[in-house]
């Protein structure tokens, strides 16, 4: 279980949170302003927007960085409230969910582009 033990990883965890949060300070407003308006629109409008690489890229980067930030943030939540075996079960589940959602997002965007 060594690989999952939360020891001697505090500094890299702090850096991951700090760097991703700085990126998200820029990404979140850009995402809301550019992608927000197409939410609730007709499919043709949505596809026309996301077929443009710049907008596909905004969604891809925002969701990838956002979900990695989520992964590290939830890990701290779990460490605070859950101990023992369930601590590791929940952390592994969170990591899996985060990676899965990143994968699905990128898959959907690629499917729209090609």
């Amino acid at each position: 279980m060594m690989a999952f033990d939360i020891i001697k990883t505090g500094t890299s965890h702090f850096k991951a949170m700090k760097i991703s949060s700085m990126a998200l300070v820029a990404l979140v407003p850009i995402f809301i302003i550019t992608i927000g308006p197409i939410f609730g629109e007709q499919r043709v409008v949505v596809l026309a927007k996301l077929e443009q690489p710049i907008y596909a890229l905004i969604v891809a980067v925002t969701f990838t960085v956002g979900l990695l930030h989520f992964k590290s943030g939830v890990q701290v939540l779990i460490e605070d409230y859950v101990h023992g075996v369930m601590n590791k079960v929940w952390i592994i589940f969170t990591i899996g969910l985060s990676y899965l959602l990143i994968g699905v997002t990128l898959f959907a965007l690629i499917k729209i582009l090609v």
Partner: protein
Amino acid sequence: MSKSKSDQRPLSPHLSVYKWQLHAITSILTRITGNALIVGVILFILWLIAAATSEANFLIMNAVISSWLGQLVLLGSLWALWYHTLAGIRHLIWDHAVWLDINTSRLLGWAVVLGSFVLTFLTILFL
């Protein structure tokens, strides 16, 4: 895996022993919004995958996000996203060991709360 001594340690934070005030509320809201945003994220991803696959799927997801429950989740997610972003900026400021005195941090707390509502309102108004 056997229960080790460390499993008996008390869990933080000890919510029941503190008096609730602005700093505690804005702090726990940062955590709540950050984690709750997964609901909005999953909703957006389902909508995205529906748009990518077929018109029929898209119509289903459009109906979901247009329903009152969908609209409520979206509105909540929008506020949570702005709140968490502003609270995050506050943390980035605090990381430099500045604006930590009671008066400035209280002002910063109110700025985060009010700012999140103002930005949510502006987003709905203009987008």
